[in-house]
């Protein structure tokens, strides 16, 4: 039972961290749009975009190489 004396304060610290992360997430605008984000997962990603990202990655590699 005595372990609670450590575990509960530890839990409080974790809660504090969770709250801090939540506040950061709100402030950085992640909760601004509750409608679109909820559905984004349902939309299929398009091929052209995937290629574009690949190209971006390639360019990045090239740039890094230079």
């Amino acid at each position, binding site marked *: 039972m005595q372990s609670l004396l450590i575990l*509960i304060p530890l839990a409080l610290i974790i809660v504090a961290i969770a709250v801090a992360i939540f506040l950061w997430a709100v402030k950085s605008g992640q909760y601004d749009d509750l409608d679109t984000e909820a559905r984004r997962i349902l939309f299929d990603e398009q091929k052209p975009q995937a290629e574009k990202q690949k190209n971006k990655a390639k360019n990045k590699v090239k740039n890094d190489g230079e």
Partner: protein
Amino acid sequence: MSVAQLIHEGGLDGYYRFRDEAGNKPDEAQHDFHAYDLPEVQAQFVSEEGEGIKTARLSVQGIHCAACAWLIEQFLEKHPAVKSVRVNASNRSCILRWDSQQSRLSDLMAQVQRIGYKPQPEQQQQRQAQQRKETHLAMMRLGVAGIGMMQVGMVAVALYAGGIQGIDDYWQVFLRWVSLVIATPVVLFSARPFFHNAFRALKMGRLNMDVPVSLAISLAYGASAWATFTRSGEVYFDSVSMFTFFLLLGRFLEMRARNSSSFASENLQQLLPLSASRIHKNEKQAVPLAALKAGDRVWVASGETIPADGKLCSAFARVDESLLTGESKPQRKNAGDSLAAGTQVTDQALEMLVEATGSSTKLSAIENLVRQAGLEKPRQAALADRIAAHFVAAVLTVSVITGICWWFIDAEKAFWVVLSVLVVTCPCALSLATPAALTAGVNRARALGILITGPQAMEVLHKIDTVAFDKTGTLTEGKIHIQSLIFAEPEHSFNESEQEHLLDIIAALEKPSSHPIAAAFAQREQTVLSESTEVIAGQGVKGIVGGVEYRFGKPDFAVPGRRLDCPVKPAMWQLLARKEGDEYLALVWLGLNDNLRADALNSVDTLRSSRYSIALLSGDRASVVSEIASQLALPDALAELQPEQKLQWLQAQQQQGHKVLMVGDGINDVPVLSAADVSMAMGEATQLAQSKADSILLNGRLSTIPLLIELAHRVQRIVRQNLAWALLYNLLALPAAAMGLLPPYLAAIGMSFSSLLVVLNATRL
């Protein structure tokens, strides 16, 4: 190319699977975005990161659901110059990062327009930033309260279990301290708006729902803290956190339902072009609108918007002034006549001398009218607020009486009993009753095809007894159609192929004209060609088709020198004539009209049979209006009304105690829309009309209006049921608490249960 084709070719068919409702049809008038490329104009909404990468903040009209946001993102991502694009469906904003060396902003905006949305720079950033900050704060308070509630609840389980089985004092004290630590930020941070509101109400000598809420929270917290310090009595930290969370949740839902649109940032100035072409030493140069001064000479191309008030320098021009007057036919102006900012040049470019700009224009006068009307709009006290005032007074009285009684029975317990009275009567369900029903109602309306944007539209709609319609674009389609065709010689037998041939000839003649009449023929495929076509402004068109000269237009133009009587049927009659020798031979009469919407008659009848009185307010000519009114069997039809006359009519109705729903679409309806008890703009309405209306009829079907009113009645019924239940629960729980019978955990369970019931009831809508 059609929008559907574009979407399909882009491989974006998924849009159709995910959209909530049919989207807007794109405007036929395509905007020209070139002015947004001027650096002076871009300074307001574009920031540069270097290397030509720029970020623009746009607000996009026409987004209604997540699928729209997805479609725009996917469509723009394909553009090689676009680096990233993020669309927010809640506030209809779009953040676009693009490479300005590869593409101009105007091209990208035109792309967005091609798939049917209307992009424009995000304006009034300050106010939006303010609103964003408020939403963030509300969310943070809600989150902290939620996390706090769960943590305290966990500890509370241990405490209650200890209360039943027995617990060492040592552990009880420790767990109480833990609860205190977690509940403190909930009370000090999350519950702050309640304290703030209660304080403000008390300072003004009023009672609101926040007064007992604040009292309950602060007393319960204070007493629990005291109990923790002194190791005596009971702790209520769990109840405190739970109230705070549920109350905040109710407020948050309500705020979301009420802020469901960000159209509010519209204003009349957005109707004006961003740039004008000033004539300087016989040369045209594009200057930002702000740089225009009285005395400048300005060139306005056909189809463009006049940027400032002034006088016409060209010989004559035709100007569409429906913005100011509601008159559907373009007005003829001669040199020296005055022109108003915001009106549109129709078929011929003109030169004008600027006399007034900015806030001294006629347009600004309308804006003032709008602002004034908005201020005078009857305010509606929400049902919950009215109940709250009585309820709060009752709760406070009962608490005091209970306190006095217990003081004589058992002075030690008095404080705790008073506290449990306050806790148990916490108006959680009461404060959730309205927002839960409103949110459900607003969502339901959206499924019907109506976007509710006004804060109180849902609550006021069920009290409506009068429905007023605008004519052009509301009851009618706002486009000129061929209504009837009558051969000039009555004995002429009807012949379809001949009729088609004649229509083809007219279409060929009207081809070069940009008069609204020509639009009625624009859909026809071209089968014949007209040579040396001439447009005679205000009269008609003439040209040679197949070697024969034809004239189409006003009767005395088509057949000069003879007086011909138009057919009796009311319409805008135009005559087609053919030249034979020196004479002109009248061939066929065309009756042009602005058609009634298909479901106008049906909707008006439905409304009438539900005993609503219906009025028609129009700025158009009396002859046209009375024709429409007789088709709809409307006795109350007013024609040739200026915007302020419409407003006067409305205010007279309101003084007689009527509640009016105004349905309109044009700029000239904006003042009356702002003043009506509830207002509705058509989906194709100008952005300004939409921004000042409480609701937008997205699907353009008038038959949805009776459905919406019916829905509003149902919402009101649910609100009443919810309030009745909440009051009943409180009335049942109050005596139990006052007699000191209700332990805190039972009060907490009862409160959650009643709140849950209220929310579930609302989902029945």
